[in-house]
Protein backbone atom coordinates (compact mmCIF):
# COMPACT_ATOMS: atom_id res chain seq x y z
CA UNK A 1 0.00 0.00 0.00
CA UNK A 2 1.21 3.47 -0.80
CA UNK A 3 2.75 5.43 2.05
CA UNK A 4 0.77 8.17 3.71
CA UNK A 5 2.30 11.64 3.86
CA UNK A 6 3.18 10.88 7.45
CA UNK A 7 4.97 7.70 6.47
CA UNK A 8 6.94 9.48 3.75
CA UNK A 9 8.04 11.96 6.40
CA UNK A 10 8.78 9.15 8.83
CA UNK A 11 10.98 7.36 6.29
CA UNK A 12 12.88 10.56 5.54
CA UNK A 13 13.38 11.24 9.24
CA UNK A 14 15.46 8.07 9.47
CA UNK A 15 18.07 9.74 7.29
CA UNK A 16 18.69 12.44 9.89
CA UNK A 17 21.95 12.42 11.79
CA UNK A 18 22.61 13.88 15.18
CA UNK A 19 23.83 17.45 15.05
CA UNK A 20 22.56 18.19 11.58
CA UNK A 21 21.27 21.54 10.35
CA UNK A 22 18.18 20.87 8.27
CA UNK A 23 15.86 22.93 6.13
CA UNK A 24 12.39 21.47 5.70
CA UNK A 25 10.22 22.77 2.89
CA UNK A 26 6.49 23.36 3.02
CA UNK A 27 4.14 20.36 2.89
CA UNK A 28 5.31 16.81 3.54
CA UNK A 29 8.86 17.97 4.42
CA UNK A 30 7.48 19.94 7.37
CA UNK A 31 6.07 16.71 8.79
CA UNK A 32 9.58 15.25 9.04
CA UNK A 33 10.03 17.28 12.23
CA UNK A 34 7.42 15.06 13.91
CA UNK A 35 9.46 11.88 13.40
CA UNK A 36 12.97 12.81 14.43
CA UNK A 37 14.45 9.66 16.01
CA UNK A 38 15.15 9.44 19.71
CA UNK A 39 18.65 10.67 20.54
CA UNK A 40 18.99 12.60 17.29
CA UNK A 41 19.19 16.32 17.81
CA UNK A 42 18.73 18.34 14.64
CA UNK A 43 18.54 22.12 14.26
CA UNK A 44 15.84 23.33 11.90
CA UNK A 45 16.53 26.35 9.76
CA UNK A 46 13.87 28.71 8.56
CA UNK A 47 15.35 30.67 5.68
CA UNK A 48 13.62 33.90 6.64
CA UNK A 49 16.13 34.17 9.46
CA UNK A 50 15.96 31.57 12.22
CA UNK A 51 18.11 28.62 13.17
CA UNK A 52 16.67 26.45 15.93
CA UNK A 53 12.99 26.58 15.09
CA UNK A 54 10.69 25.27 17.80
CA UNK A 55 7.07 24.09 17.67
CA UNK A 56 4.10 26.33 16.93
CA UNK A 57 3.36 28.62 19.86
CA UNK A 58 0.58 28.28 22.36
CA UNK A 59 -2.05 30.98 22.05
CA UNK A 60 -0.39 33.23 24.64
CA UNK A 61 3.03 32.99 23.00
CA UNK A 62 2.02 34.02 19.47
CA UNK A 63 4.38 36.72 18.20
CA UNK A 64 3.79 38.42 14.85
CA UNK A 65 7.54 39.08 14.71
CA UNK A 66 8.44 35.40 14.83
CA UNK A 67 7.34 33.41 11.80
CA UNK A 68 8.79 30.65 9.65
CA UNK A 69 9.35 30.63 5.91
CA UNK A 70 5.76 29.45 5.45
CA UNK A 71 4.67 32.61 7.30
CA UNK A 72 3.41 30.50 10.20
CA UNK A 73 3.89 31.67 13.76
CA UNK A 74 6.64 29.67 15.45
CA UNK A 75 8.77 29.60 18.59
CA UNK A 76 12.46 29.48 19.37
CA UNK A 77 14.40 26.94 21.41
CA UNK A 78 17.37 27.38 23.75
CA UNK A 79 20.35 28.02 21.48
CA UNK A 80 18.31 29.53 18.64
CA UNK A 81 19.81 32.30 16.52
CA UNK A 82 18.20 35.06 14.50
CA UNK A 83 19.81 36.62 11.42
CA UNK A 84 19.02 38.56 8.29
CA UNK A 85 18.18 37.21 4.85
CA UNK A 86 21.63 37.58 3.34
CA UNK A 87 23.25 35.79 6.28
CA UNK A 88 20.59 33.11 6.03
CA UNK A 89 21.37 32.41 2.41
CA UNK A 90 25.09 32.65 3.06
CA UNK A 91 24.51 29.53 5.17
CA UNK A 92 22.50 27.89 2.43
CA UNK A 93 24.53 28.94 -0.61
CA UNK A 94 27.77 28.36 1.24
CA UNK A 95 26.95 24.69 1.73
CA UNK A 96 26.61 24.82 5.50
CA UNK A 97 23.23 23.06 5.66
CA UNK A 98 23.50 19.31 6.18
CA UNK A 99 20.19 18.46 4.58
CA UNK A 100 17.36 20.01 2.62
CA UNK A 101 14.04 18.23 2.29
CA UNK A 102 11.66 19.65 -0.26
CA UNK A 103 8.73 18.80 -2.46
CA UNK A 104 8.74 18.63 -6.25
CA UNK A 105 6.43 18.60 -9.22
CA UNK A 106 8.95 16.65 -11.28
CA UNK A 107 12.42 15.21 -10.94
CA UNK A 108 14.41 13.41 -13.59
CA UNK A 109 17.11 10.80 -13.87
CA UNK A 110 19.75 13.50 -14.33
CA UNK A 111 18.96 14.91 -10.93
CA UNK A 112 17.09 17.92 -12.28
CA UNK A 113 14.16 19.20 -10.27
CA UNK A 114 11.13 21.33 -11.16
CA UNK A 115 8.98 22.60 -8.34
CA UNK A 116 8.13 26.24 -8.82
CA UNK A 117 6.35 27.02 -12.04
CA UNK A 118 3.69 25.64 -14.33
CA UNK A 119 3.56 27.60 -17.58
CA UNK A 120 0.15 29.14 -18.12
CA UNK A 121 -0.71 29.00 -14.45
CA UNK A 122 -0.22 31.72 -11.88
CA UNK A 123 3.40 31.71 -10.80
CA UNK A 124 4.06 32.39 -7.15
CA UNK A 125 7.82 32.34 -7.35
CA UNK A 126 10.68 30.13 -6.32
CA UNK A 127 11.22 31.65 -2.88
CA UNK A 128 14.32 30.03 -1.45
CA UNK A 129 14.02 26.74 -3.35
CA UNK A 130 16.62 27.50 -6.03
CA UNK A 131 19.14 28.54 -3.40
CA UNK A 132 18.45 25.43 -1.34
CA UNK A 133 18.91 22.99 -4.22
CA UNK A 134 22.01 24.79 -5.48
CA UNK A 135 23.56 25.18 -2.05
CA UNK A 136 22.87 21.91 -0.28
CA UNK A 137 24.87 18.82 -1.12
CA UNK A 138 22.42 16.51 0.57
CA UNK A 139 18.84 16.86 -0.65
CA UNK A 140 15.87 14.56 -0.24
CA UNK A 141 12.81 15.11 -2.38
CA UNK A 142 9.50 14.17 -0.78
CA UNK A 143 6.57 13.73 -3.15
CA UNK A 144 3.98 11.41 -4.54
CA UNK A 145 5.29 9.08 -7.23
CA UNK A 146 2.61 10.15 -9.70
CA UNK A 147 0.53 13.28 -10.02
CA UNK A 148 -3.22 13.37 -9.53
CA UNK A 149 -3.75 12.34 -13.14
CA UNK A 150 -1.70 9.19 -12.53
CA UNK A 151 1.30 10.46 -14.50
CA UNK A 152 4.79 9.79 -13.26
CA UNK A 153 6.68 12.62 -11.60
CA UNK A 154 9.96 10.71 -12.05
CA UNK A 155 10.98 11.43 -15.61
CA UNK A 156 13.69 10.98 -18.19
CA UNK A 157 13.77 14.73 -18.42
CA UNK A 158 11.76 17.33 -16.56
CA UNK A 159 9.13 19.02 -18.71
CA UNK A 160 8.47 21.97 -16.39
CA UNK A 161 10.80 24.94 -15.88
CA UNK A 162 13.66 23.81 -13.68
CA UNK A 163 14.44 24.80 -10.12
CA UNK A 164 17.91 23.30 -10.31
CA UNK A 165 20.08 21.04 -12.40
CA UNK A 166 21.82 17.79 -11.49
CA UNK A 167 21.28 18.36 -7.79
CA UNK A 168 18.87 15.65 -6.64
CA UNK A 169 20.30 12.32 -5.52
CA UNK A 170 17.48 10.94 -3.34
CA UNK A 171 13.71 10.83 -3.38
CA UNK A 172 11.12 9.29 -1.10
CA UNK A 173 7.72 8.85 -2.73
CA UNK A 174 4.55 7.17 -1.56
CA UNK A 175 5.75 4.05 -3.36
CA UNK A 176 9.49 3.87 -2.86
CA UNK A 177 12.82 5.23 -1.80
CA UNK A 178 15.04 5.78 -4.82
CA UNK A 179 18.46 7.25 -5.46
CA UNK A 180 19.66 8.85 -8.66
CA UNK A 181 22.98 7.47 -9.87
CA UNK A 182 24.76 7.63 -13.21
CA UNK A 183 21.73 8.92 -15.04
CA UNK A 184 19.24 6.39 -13.67
CA UNK A 185 16.79 6.05 -10.85
CA UNK A 186 17.84 3.25 -8.53
CA UNK A 187 15.06 1.55 -6.59
CA UNK A 188 16.32 0.99 -3.05
CA UNK A 189 13.25 0.37 -0.89
CA UNK A 190 9.61 -0.37 -1.55
CA UNK A 191 6.63 0.83 0.43
CA UNK A 192 5.05 -2.13 2.26
CA UNK A 193 3.07 -4.23 -0.19
CA UNK A 194 4.16 -2.28 -3.27
CA UNK A 195 5.76 -4.36 -6.02
CA UNK A 196 8.78 -3.59 -8.16
CA UNK A 197 6.45 -3.72 -11.17
CA UNK A 198 4.17 -1.05 -9.75
CA UNK A 199 7.13 1.28 -9.25
CA UNK A 200 8.44 0.48 -12.71
CA UNK A 201 5.10 1.21 -14.34
CA UNK A 202 4.83 4.56 -12.59
CA UNK A 203 8.41 5.62 -13.25
CA UNK A 204 8.83 7.35 -16.57
CA UNK A 205 12.61 7.23 -16.61
CA UNK A 206 15.36 4.63 -16.56
CA UNK A 207 15.00 2.51 -13.47
CA UNK A 208 17.57 0.15 -12.01
CA UNK A 209 16.48 -2.18 -9.23
CA UNK A 210 19.13 -2.44 -6.54
CA UNK A 211 20.29 -5.97 -5.76
CA UNK A 212 19.42 -5.43 -2.13
CA UNK A 213 16.04 -3.76 -2.67
CA UNK A 214 13.92 -4.27 0.42
CA UNK A 215 10.61 -3.33 1.94
CA UNK A 216 10.32 -0.45 4.36
CA UNK A 217 9.05 -1.24 7.81
CA UNK A 218 7.09 1.10 10.04
Amino acid at each position, binding site marked *: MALSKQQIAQRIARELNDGWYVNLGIGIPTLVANYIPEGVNVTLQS*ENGLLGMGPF*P*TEDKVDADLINAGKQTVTMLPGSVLFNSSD*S*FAMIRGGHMDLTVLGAMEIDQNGDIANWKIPGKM*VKGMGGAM*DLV*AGTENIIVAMTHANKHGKSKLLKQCSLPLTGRACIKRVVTDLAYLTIENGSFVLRELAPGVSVEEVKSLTNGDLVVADDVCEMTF
Partner: protein
Amino acid sequence: MSKRVYTNAQDALAGIEDNMTLMLGGFGLCGIPENCIRELVRLKVKGLTCISNNAGVDDFGIGLMLQQQQVVKMISSYVGENAEFERQMLSGELEVELLPQGTLAEKCRAGGAGIPSFFTATGYGTEVAEGKETREIDGRMYVLEPSLTADFAYVKAWKGDKYGNLIFKGTARNFNPVMAMAGKITIAEVEELVEPGELDPNFIHTPGIFVQRIFEGVDYEKRIEQRTITQ
Protein backbone atom coordinates in the same frame (compact mmCIF):
# COMPACT_ATOMS: atom_id res chain seq x y z
CA MET B 1 22.60 64.02 7.97
CA SER B 2 22.19 65.88 11.21
CA LYS B 3 18.56 66.44 10.20
CA ARG B 4 18.10 62.71 10.44
CA VAL B 5 15.20 62.49 12.86
CA TYR B 6 11.72 63.08 11.43
CA THR B 7 8.45 63.33 13.28
CA ASN B 8 6.35 61.06 11.09
CA ALA B 9 6.08 59.25 7.78
CA GLN B 10 4.70 62.30 6.01
CA ASP B 11 7.81 64.34 6.76
CA ALA B 12 10.21 61.45 6.31
CA LEU B 13 9.01 60.49 2.84
CA ALA B 14 9.66 63.89 1.28
CA GLY B 15 11.28 63.64 -2.13
CA ILE B 16 9.52 60.56 -3.42
CA GLU B 17 8.53 60.91 -7.05
CA ASP B 18 6.71 58.90 -9.68
CA ASN B 19 8.72 56.21 -11.47
CA MET B 20 11.25 55.73 -8.71
CA THR B 21 12.74 52.43 -7.60
CA LEU B 22 11.96 51.49 -4.01
CA MET B 23 13.07 48.74 -1.67
CA LEU B 24 10.68 47.63 1.05
CA GLY B 25 11.84 45.39 3.87
CA GLY B 26 9.85 42.50 5.27
CA PHE B 27 9.13 38.84 4.70
CA GLY B 28 5.47 38.20 4.08
CA LEU B 29 3.81 40.73 6.36
CA CYS B 30 6.50 40.35 9.01
CA GLY B 31 8.72 43.37 9.53
CA ILE B 32 7.18 45.48 6.77
CA PRO B 33 7.40 49.29 6.96
CA GLU B 34 3.71 49.80 7.66
CA ASN B 35 3.89 53.55 8.19
CA CYS B 36 5.88 54.16 5.01
CA ILE B 37 3.51 52.03 2.96
CA ARG B 38 0.52 53.89 4.38
CA GLU B 39 2.13 57.16 3.36
CA LEU B 40 3.05 55.88 -0.13
CA VAL B 41 -0.61 54.93 -0.55
CA ARG B 42 -1.72 58.37 0.62
CA LEU B 43 0.73 60.11 -1.71
CA LYS B 44 -0.48 58.04 -4.67
CA VAL B 45 2.94 58.12 -6.34
CA LYS B 46 2.79 56.01 -9.49
CA GLY B 47 4.99 54.07 -11.85
CA LEU B 48 6.99 52.57 -9.02
CA THR B 49 9.41 49.68 -9.24
CA CYS B 50 9.23 47.86 -5.91
CA ILE B 51 11.93 45.51 -4.71
CA SER B 52 10.51 43.40 -1.91
CA ASN B 53 10.64 39.70 -1.16
CA ASN B 54 6.84 39.50 -1.25
CA ALA B 55 4.03 41.71 -2.44
CA GLY B 56 1.73 41.77 0.57
CA VAL B 57 -1.86 40.57 0.58
CA ASP B 58 -4.90 42.19 -1.01
CA ASP B 59 -5.64 44.58 1.81
CA PHE B 60 -2.28 44.95 3.55
CA GLY B 61 1.34 45.71 2.80
CA ILE B 62 2.30 46.36 -0.79
CA GLY B 63 -1.13 45.01 -1.73
CA LEU B 64 -2.51 48.43 -0.77
CA MET B 65 -0.27 50.06 -3.36
CA LEU B 66 -1.26 47.51 -5.97
CA GLN B 67 -4.92 48.31 -5.39
CA GLN B 68 -4.17 51.84 -6.55
CA GLN B 69 -2.02 50.65 -9.46
CA GLN B 70 0.98 52.53 -8.12
CA VAL B 71 3.41 49.75 -9.01
CA VAL B 72 4.53 48.96 -12.55
CA LYS B 73 7.21 46.43 -11.66
CA MET B 74 7.82 44.07 -8.75
CA ILE B 75 11.17 42.38 -8.09
CA SER B 76 10.44 39.59 -5.61
CA SER B 77 11.04 35.95 -4.81
CA TYR B 78 7.53 34.90 -3.86
CA VAL B 79 4.28 36.64 -4.67
CA GLY B 80 0.68 35.99 -5.39
CA GLU B 81 -0.93 35.75 -1.95
CA ASN B 82 -2.92 38.45 -3.59
CA ALA B 83 -5.73 38.39 -6.16
CA GLU B 84 -5.22 41.93 -7.46
CA PHE B 85 -1.54 41.19 -7.98
CA GLU B 86 -2.48 38.16 -10.03
CA ARG B 87 -4.95 40.12 -12.12
CA GLN B 88 -2.46 42.86 -12.93
CA MET B 89 0.29 40.38 -13.67
CA LEU B 90 -1.83 38.28 -16.00
CA SER B 91 -3.19 41.36 -17.76
CA GLY B 92 0.35 42.64 -18.30
CA GLU B 93 -0.21 45.83 -16.32
CA LEU B 94 2.36 44.69 -13.80
CA GLU B 95 5.81 43.45 -14.74
CA VAL B 96 7.17 40.84 -12.35
CA GLU B 97 10.79 39.77 -12.06
CA LEU B 98 11.14 36.71 -9.87
CA LEU B 99 14.49 36.01 -8.27
CA PRO B 100 15.68 33.31 -5.91
CA GLN B 101 15.32 34.58 -2.36
CA GLY B 102 19.00 34.30 -1.54
CA THR B 103 20.03 35.93 -4.78
CA LEU B 104 17.63 38.79 -4.07
CA ALA B 105 19.07 39.27 -0.58
CA GLU B 106 22.65 39.13 -1.83
CA LYS B 107 21.94 41.53 -4.70
CA CYS B 108 20.72 44.07 -2.17
CA ARG B 109 23.71 43.56 0.11
CA ALA B 110 26.06 43.82 -2.88
CA GLY B 111 24.37 47.04 -3.98
CA GLY B 112 25.01 48.51 -0.56
CA ALA B 113 28.53 47.15 -0.32
CA GLY B 114 29.86 48.53 -3.62
CA ILE B 115 29.95 45.17 -5.34
CA PRO B 116 28.46 45.63 -8.81
CA SER B 117 28.03 41.90 -9.48
CA PHE B 118 28.88 38.46 -8.13
CA PHE B 119 28.73 34.86 -9.23
CA THR B 120 26.31 32.36 -7.71
CA ALA B 121 25.40 28.79 -8.59
CA THR B 122 21.78 29.47 -7.69
CA GLY B 123 19.55 29.45 -10.72
CA TYR B 124 22.09 28.06 -13.14
CA GLY B 125 20.31 26.08 -15.83
CA THR B 126 16.97 27.72 -15.02
CA GLU B 127 14.99 30.65 -16.37
CA VAL B 128 16.67 32.86 -13.80
CA ALA B 129 19.94 32.56 -15.69
CA GLU B 130 18.45 33.48 -19.06
CA GLY B 131 20.21 36.46 -20.57
CA LYS B 132 22.82 36.45 -17.82
CA GLU B 133 26.50 35.65 -18.13
CA THR B 134 27.38 32.16 -16.94
CA ARG B 135 30.81 30.72 -16.30
CA GLU B 136 32.50 27.56 -15.10
CA ILE B 137 34.61 28.06 -11.99
CA ASP B 138 36.45 25.09 -10.49
CA GLY B 139 34.23 22.66 -12.36
CA ARG B 140 30.91 24.17 -11.45
CA MET B 141 28.64 26.51 -13.40
CA TYR B 142 27.71 29.91 -12.03
CA VAL B 143 25.52 32.87 -12.99
CA LEU B 144 26.69 36.48 -12.78
CA GLU B 145 24.17 38.52 -10.84
CA PRO B 146 24.27 42.34 -10.90
CA SER B 147 23.59 44.15 -7.66
CA LEU B 148 20.49 46.17 -6.82
CA THR B 149 20.11 49.65 -5.38
CA ALA B 150 17.07 51.86 -4.89
CA ASP B 151 16.21 55.54 -4.81
CA PHE B 152 14.59 54.98 -1.43
CA ALA B 153 14.75 52.00 0.88
CA TYR B 154 12.04 51.71 3.52
CA VAL B 155 12.85 49.54 6.48
CA LYS B 156 11.11 48.73 9.73
CA ALA B 157 13.07 48.18 12.93
CA TRP B 158 12.15 47.44 16.52
CA LYS B 159 14.30 50.13 18.13
CA GLY B 160 16.44 52.82 16.66
CA ASP B 161 18.45 55.68 18.06
CA LYS B 162 18.70 59.23 16.76
CA TYR B 163 21.91 58.39 14.90
CA GLY B 164 19.95 55.83 12.89
CA ASN B 165 21.38 52.74 14.58
CA LEU B 166 18.81 49.97 14.39
CA ILE B 167 17.92 46.72 16.06
CA PHE B 168 15.29 44.35 14.81
CA LYS B 169 13.14 41.81 16.62
CA GLY B 170 12.75 38.11 15.85
CA THR B 171 12.37 37.20 12.20
CA ALA B 172 11.14 40.73 11.45
CA ARG B 173 14.81 41.40 10.66
CA ASN B 174 14.82 39.50 7.33
CA PHE B 175 15.51 41.80 4.35
CA ASN B 176 15.52 45.04 6.33
CA PRO B 177 19.27 45.24 7.09
CA VAL B 178 20.39 44.52 3.52
CA MET B 179 17.90 46.92 2.01
CA ALA B 180 18.99 49.59 4.49
CA MET B 181 22.46 49.24 2.96
CA ALA B 182 21.23 49.55 -0.62
CA GLY B 183 19.03 52.63 -0.48
CA LYS B 184 20.43 55.87 -1.85
CA ILE B 185 18.19 57.30 0.85
CA THR B 186 17.18 54.84 3.53
CA ILE B 187 14.20 55.66 5.71
CA ALA B 188 13.80 53.65 8.89
CA GLU B 189 10.58 53.53 10.84
CA VAL B 190 10.97 52.17 14.34
CA GLU B 191 8.62 51.10 17.09
CA GLU B 192 10.71 52.96 19.63
CA LEU B 193 13.09 55.84 19.00
CA VAL B 194 15.72 56.24 21.70
CA GLU B 195 18.68 58.49 22.45
CA PRO B 196 22.18 57.64 21.20
CA GLY B 197 23.85 55.46 23.79
CA GLU B 198 20.72 53.60 24.81
CA LEU B 199 21.41 50.74 22.42
CA ASP B 200 24.37 48.51 23.23
CA PRO B 201 27.02 49.30 20.57
CA ASN B 202 27.98 45.63 20.43
CA PHE B 203 24.49 44.51 19.46
CA ILE B 204 23.31 46.86 16.74
CA HIS B 205 22.09 45.16 13.59
CA THR B 206 22.23 48.13 11.23
CA PRO B 207 24.80 50.89 11.83
CA GLY B 208 23.33 54.37 11.50
CA ILE B 209 25.59 55.22 8.57
CA PHE B 210 23.15 53.32 6.36
CA VAL B 211 20.11 55.25 7.60
CA GLN B 212 19.49 58.77 6.29
CA ARG B 213 16.12 59.34 7.95
CA ILE B 214 14.42 57.83 10.96
CA PHE B 215 11.05 58.26 12.64
CA GLU B 216 8.95 56.57 15.26
CA GLY B 217 6.03 54.82 13.59
CA VAL B 218 2.50 54.62 14.94
CA ASP B 219 -0.42 52.20 14.93
CA TYR B 220 1.44 49.03 14.07
CA GLU B 221 -0.99 46.34 13.08
CA LYS B 222 1.56 43.54 12.60
CA ARG B 223 -0.87 41.33 10.84
CA ILE B 224 -0.24 37.58 11.00
CA GLU B 225 -0.67 35.63 7.76
CA GLN B 226 -0.67 32.11 9.18
CA ARG B 227 -1.63 32.05 12.82
CA THR B 228 -0.55 28.56 13.80
CA ILE B 229 -1.08 27.34 17.33
CA THR B 230 -0.03 24.41 19.46
CA GLN B 231 -3.03 23.57 21.64
